[in-house]
């Protein structure tokens, strides 16, 4: 490998790191993304120059096909479908790395026992890449609603999963150091793919944000493994950066749900549309309010904090919400948005959906930033959120005990826009609904929001 290429890779690595650094502020983030793409382009160009490719047919064909598919997907995808898109893209990244490992195996295999370094990293790359690929396809299927969002797991499947994992380690080691048999290698690939399916299928649809964060991390590690195989530094560095990013996001998501990673992966939680047969409102009564009443309260108060949940995005009501907020601001009301980390279907998803509705980002507040401010807030307006505002999380004996919540019950008034009193994903009752300061504004998010806009406008 020549010196110029190595130097260009170093520049590329620097650009990747600086580009990611720029992502820490919305003002510079777009530039950061451009920097990272430039880093990628540089790495691609120097690689092609160095390899003195004889015939360009396959390489150019591959790049053109891939780029067309990628560009079309990027242009067409709806912002609500970002989790699916990232989910399946993780799979492509992991799959590409696995194929690199496979190709190296096929190339080196005829020469007998593999060199130790290559042998072990080929097997590792194949394992991580294979799991990432099939796992991502399952994650995509769950997010897109093509397969059941319920966790598919039991004692037997867990034992099978563990057995396959141990078997993979054993067979992988054997192939790497003893006998690079093609048959065994194919068995290894099949087992890695099955492992990915079993692992992700065991995770509930509601926990998919954690799963795609983790698969994101794996896709980076798979690229790093490919770098170890080829002794290529830029692959190792870029892969490690992605590995770190995915791991950080995975941790943040687990914390926001107050669950351990092991619990998310093997606990079988996150059943979608949890049934709440055992929950009755009992003798508690909830106070309801109509559009006119809610509009009155909102229009004549001084400060509103909006808490959007995923129900808002499902109903496509974020644009009407934006209209409402504009009207309120014209009347001199201070409007802020409080976004819980798990408000959307992937980390930061709700922020993107609100940005799409032209809500400026300096109006969006994180949990830590906003929680102190609820006590000075006139109205907390909750749209399509439930568990993330359940004050029971503060009680040690609750199912969701310890989950970080938005302290909306400290606001002077609470208006909840919701279809019914039914519970959220956690399947538990929410005492917030029955508080004296709470008003329930029943109805579907979109028409209700439109009614609200009309009422405020007429005021």
């Amino acid at each position, binding site marked *: 490998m020549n010196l110029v290429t190595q130097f260009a890779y170093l520049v590329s690595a620097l650009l990747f790191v600086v580009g*990611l650094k720029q*992502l820490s502020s*919305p003002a510079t983030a777009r530039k950061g993304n451009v920097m990272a793409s430039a880093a990628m382009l540089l*790495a691609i160009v120097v690689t092609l120059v160095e390899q003195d490719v004889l015939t360009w047919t396959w390489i150019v064909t591959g790049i053109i096909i891939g780029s067309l598919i990628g560009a079309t997907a990027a242009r067409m995808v709806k*912002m609500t479908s970002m989790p699916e898109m990232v989910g399946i893209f993780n799979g492509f990244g*992991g799959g590409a790395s696995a194929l690199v490992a496979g190709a190296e195996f096929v190339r080196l295999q005829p020469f007998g026992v593999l060199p130790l370094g290559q042998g072990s990293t080929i097997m590792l790359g194949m394992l991580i890449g294979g799991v990432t690929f099939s796992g991502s396809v399952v994650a995509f299927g769950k997010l897109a609603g093509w397969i059941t969002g319920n966790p598919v797991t039991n004692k037997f499947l867990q034992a099978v999963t563990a057995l396959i994992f141990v078997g993979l380690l054993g067979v992988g080691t054997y192939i790497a150091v003893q006998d690079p048999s093609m048959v065994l290698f194919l068995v290894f690939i099949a087992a890695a793919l099955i492992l990915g399916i079993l692992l992700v299928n065991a995770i509930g649809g509601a926990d998919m944000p954690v799963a795609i964060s983790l698969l994101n991390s794996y896709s980076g590690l798979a690229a790093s493994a490919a770098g170890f195989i080829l*002794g290529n530094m830029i692959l190792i560095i870029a*892969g490690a950066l992605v590995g770190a990013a995915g791991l950080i996001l995975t941790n943040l998501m687990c914390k926001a749900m107050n669950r351990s990673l092991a619990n998310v992966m093997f606990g079988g939680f996150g059943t979608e549309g949890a049934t709440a047969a055992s929950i009755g409102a009992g003798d508690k009564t909830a106070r309801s309010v109509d559009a006119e009443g809610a509009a009155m309260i909102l229009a004549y108060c001084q400060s509103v904090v909006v808490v959007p949940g995923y129900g808002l995005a499902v109903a496509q009501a974020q644009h009407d919400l934006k209209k409402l907020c504009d009207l309120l601001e014209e009347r001199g009301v201070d409007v802020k948005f409080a976004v819980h980390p798990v408000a959307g279907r992937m980390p930061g998803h709700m922020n993107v959906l609100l940005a799409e509705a032209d809500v400026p980002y300096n109006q969006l507040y*994180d949990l830590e930033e906003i929680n102190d401010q609820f006590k000075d807030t006139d109205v907390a307006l909750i749209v399509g959120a439930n568990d993330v505002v359940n004050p029971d999380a503060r009680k040690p004996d609750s199912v969701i005990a310890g989950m970080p919540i938005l302290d909306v019950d400290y606001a002077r008034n609470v208006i909840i826009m919701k279809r019914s009193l039914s519970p959220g994903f956690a399947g538990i009752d929410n005492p917030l609904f029955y508080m004296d300061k709470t008003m329930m504004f029943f109805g579907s998010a979109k028409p209700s929001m439109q009614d609200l806009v009309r009422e405020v406008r007429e005021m």
Partner: protein
Amino acid sequence: MESMPIMLVALYVFVLATLAGKEVITKVPPTLHTPLMSGANAISGIALIGALIVSAEAEMAREPVVVILGLVSIIFASINVVGGFLVTDRMLEMFKKK
């Protein structure tokens, strides 16, 4: 001093890059976590470099299986790179200040 074996150098690079990544990415605010993930996603398409190297080698070795594996790998990775960076840009474009 004897030069270190390549695998050991690679391990140093991997560990240090992971730490650098952790430092930089921890500072990304929750508002930008989705673009961060799709941007990181695009970067994991770096596997394209590996796919190109493997494909170029395959041509010289005239090994048809490797050529096909390389081609599919190039397609996968290109989807990842091009789609990832473009969709990230599309999202970031929407983030505006008042």
